[in-house]
């Protein structure tokens, strides 16, 4: 039932999404936007998994399961991250990543 879209298309989309996420991670200052960039990165990886699974190994389900686990881990990560962010916000009333350098040197 599925035909016509080459694997490369998926991969290129995933790549672009991944590097956009990287870019966001590198330039954004607000911790929450950084978190969102991470979500982008994770999603791009998920797309790759799924595409590989479907097109190269049609009879298997590993790609899908990986994706499920990634989503679960992402959920866990997000919840902890947001807890930390809120905590930080409480302390220094700011969630700018550049201000968070107390532990340098």
């Amino acid at each position, binding site marked *: *039932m*599925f035909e016509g879209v080459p694997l490369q298309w998926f991969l290129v989309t995933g*790549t672009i999404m991944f590097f956009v996420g990287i870019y966001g991670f590198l330039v954004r200052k607000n911790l929450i936007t950084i978190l969102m960039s991470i979500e982008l990165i994770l999603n791009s990886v998920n797309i790759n998994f*799924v595409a590989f699974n479907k097109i190269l190994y049609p009879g298997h389900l590993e790609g899908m399961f990986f994706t499920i686990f990634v*989503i679960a881990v992402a959920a866990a990560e*997000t919840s902890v991250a947001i807890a930390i*962010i*809120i905590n930080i916000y*409480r302390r220094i009333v700011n969630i700018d990543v550049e201000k968070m350098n107390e532990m340098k040197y």
Partner: protein
Amino acid sequence: MTTNQLMFVIFSAVIIIFSILTVTSRRILRAATYLLFVLVATAGLYFLLQFNFLAAIQLTLYVGGIVVLIIFSILLTSHLGDKLEAPGWKKTVPALFVAVFGAVMCTITILQYNFPMEVITGSDRTKIREISYSLVSTEKFGYALPFEVISILLLASMIGAIILAKKRKD
């Protein structure tokens, strides 16, 4: 151009455009909304690939869970009217360089590689039953152990999040 191709182009265009908007938008709530679009489009891709269950999870967990969580935290920590300050060129230029360079390099690599182009035939919409069996099976291609691990991780992160976010008494 087949329907599949058309659908793919639409979804991937949405993903790319809104990803870029997500990381460049200076209003944080809008960024979150753009992220929402990206995630929904990703779910669309999953549908396209006939992973309906996965797409459903994507929609419920990501879109319904994580993004809502993010929006809540935005509401808690930011003033909605504020614009984020634009990052300086000292940050954007190297980051842009790295990102573009990486993207170009990876794309070239991908396009140069010859993947075996099998044409998928037959009906293989994945059965939910099949998924749930392998999720708890201990046989080959069974995922009982990761499943348990992830459960514990989720539990741990839940507790951790509560403890972290709890108001200190001091």
